[in-house]
């Protein structure tokens, strides 16, 4: 028994594909980025698409983030928040709509190429390499970097001291919250030009969450745009420059973080009153 932390009770790869049986088909390699000047730093515009051959999950959904901004997506479970994030990262082949990064149309390029273009992403689930050590997880975050990344790693360890303690341990043996820290740390290692976080705070303790939010704000202030999905919405909206409410795959409300936070309808329906 490897214990209760394995994602799969039945540890048989042959049945439960470890990739979680996801039907997502990433954009294949080989596409090219097209110049598309103007607009926000990162924008997924009028994105429409779904998983495999299934029905559309996203309906002309638009999400954008400017340099130095924090944009937050909230919405009920299953609204398509994670799907939208995946679509912007090319983990999902869009049926319509475009994704543009820093004046380039990147709709057709593969996820690994987007990493090279400077995007960093923490998915909601399956966001660590369970069989590799914490340190190797972080190194993998820096995979596309050719420079010396030791100081970035030191910063991550500063942010999450517990990871330093456990750096030789396989990440799969960590507690839920610790895994989440590894996942965020991995994305920070990329030194991205834009950071996409899907519920980075799920399962982390309040004290770590505070640090995390502080750090996100700090990072954004250095000019790095951050796009994140949060269920811990009240706290997230407080720091958000821009916020989107997604409902059933479409934009329902858009505004500044504070505006939405104080919108009574949004509060009642999505923020838990």
């Amino acid at each position, binding site marked *: 028994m490897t214990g*209760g932390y*394995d994602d799969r*009770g*039945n*540890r*048989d790869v*042959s*049945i*439960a594909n470890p990739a979680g049986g996801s039907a997502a088909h990433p954009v294949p390699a080989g596409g090219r980025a097209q110049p598309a000047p103007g607009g926000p730093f990162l924008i997924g515009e009028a994105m429409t698409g779904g998983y495999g051959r299934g029905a559309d999950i996203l309906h002309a959904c638009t999400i954008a983030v400017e340099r130095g901004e924090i944009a937050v997506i909230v919405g009920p479970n299953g609204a398509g928040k994670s799907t939208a994030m995946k679509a912007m990262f090319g983990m999902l082949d869009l049926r319509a709509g475009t994704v543009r990064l820093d004046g380039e149309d990147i709709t057709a390029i593969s996820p690994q190429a987007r990493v090279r273009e400077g995007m960093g992403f923490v998915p909601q689930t399956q966001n660590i390499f369970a069989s590799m050590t914490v340190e190797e997880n972080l190194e993998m975050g820096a995979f596309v970097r050719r420079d010396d990344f030791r100081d970035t790693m030191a910063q991550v360890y500063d942010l999450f001291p517990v990871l330093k303690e456990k750096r030789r341990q396989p990440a799969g043996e960590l507690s839920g919250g610790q895994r989440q820290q590894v996942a965020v740390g991995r994305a920070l290692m990329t030194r991205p030009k834009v950071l996409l976080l899907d519920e980075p705070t799920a399962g982390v303790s309040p004290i770590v969450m505070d640090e995390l939010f502080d750090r996100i704000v700090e990072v954004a202030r250095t000019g790095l745009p951050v796009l994140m999905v949060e269920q811990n919405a009240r706290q997230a909206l407080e720091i958000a420059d821009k916020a989107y409410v997604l409902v059933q795959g479409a934009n329902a409300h858009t505004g500044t973080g504070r505006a939405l936070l104080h919108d009574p309808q949004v509060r009642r329906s999505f923020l838990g009153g």
Partner: protein
Amino acid sequence: MRTLALFALVAALILGTGVLQSWNSALIILNMGLVSAIMALGVNLQWGLAGLFNVGVMGFVALGGLAVVLTSTAPVPQAWTAGGARIIAALILGAASITLGAVAWRTLHRGRRGLAVAVIAVLGFVAFRWVLDPAVEAVEAVNPAATGYLGGLGLPVLLAWPVGGLLAAGVAWVIGKTALGLRSDYLAIATLGIAEIVIAVLKNEDWLARGVKNVIGLPRPLPYEIDLQGSPVFAGRADALGLDVTTASTLYVKLGYSVLFSAVLIAVLVLAQLALTSPWGRMMRAIRDNEEAAEAMGKDVTARHLQVFILGSVLCGIAGAMMTTLDGQLTPSSYQPLRYTFLIWVMVILGGSGNNLGAVLGGFLVWFLWVQVEPIGQWVMQIATSGMAAESALRVHLLESVQHMRLLTMGIILLVVLRFAPRGLLPEK
């Protein structure tokens, strides 16, 4: 729809064989197809339904074969007097020391039990060999070219089918108790090993079933062709049908097997289908998807695994007994993993694992191919070389190697089918 179409295709292939080659060939394919389908159902039960990676199919099939010998051949009285009682005593002794060992392992305290069990094992083994060896020697010395074994019980051969199932169940129980804790490939290699052990015993314990000297001329549930050919009544009927009597007799016997086998297959299929669509099937699928969660939801995963492992093995045992009955002989060295384990797996996966009908379809189709790739390969080669100069070295070389087209063709067809149906022909919905 797809199901129907594919089964129609298989039917057409077999009928086509009948028309283009001969009805005897068609029936022989059909019969082994039926047997294969039952084996595939067994594997599908274990894998498709419970996610148990059993690659010891060959062992259970062989046990079924052994059952035929043990039930249906005539006993050898001299052998029994020579050492029968002593062999039985040795077996009981062996079983007793294993039980004792297991009990000791369970009851004794941690520190000492390793040593205790080791001592029991060694002493038990020595005693076992001491009782067994002389008896074996005596038994095997009884006319080794023709007998040299204890013989069977002389019962009707149809009885051997359920006995084959029981034998398989017994061994499956032992394996299940020890090895089912292992996961995926680790379980696979353990079952593979156990199958090899079963075959090793079958090959080397001559007193049991003549080992590699084979038991031939096993009794049959159906009349012999030559007897039919000699019977005027039968000849008359054949005449009335416009068939020559030899063909009629061979067809008659094969059809007889087809009927028997179909009856078993249909019964098994109905039961399997009922089980699959019941809450039991749902529970098994849940266990397959996530054991830990199933366990937390009150399902006794270990017990269910054992149950389904035994069930699947029983099917393989029954099918093995049927096959040996059809062959009329037990040849232990013909049990090769490629043929009796992996080919069955190909059937299950190609048919579509998790789907009983898929397994059955795979059983028929793959068996059909296994038999027919030889002519197909030759035919392809003929076409390929027909354009070449008659004396060209390449052509000669190719024609000489035509027999190797058999497996090559099998491989190509396998890849092509899986290319167009990557989840099997009839995937689990």
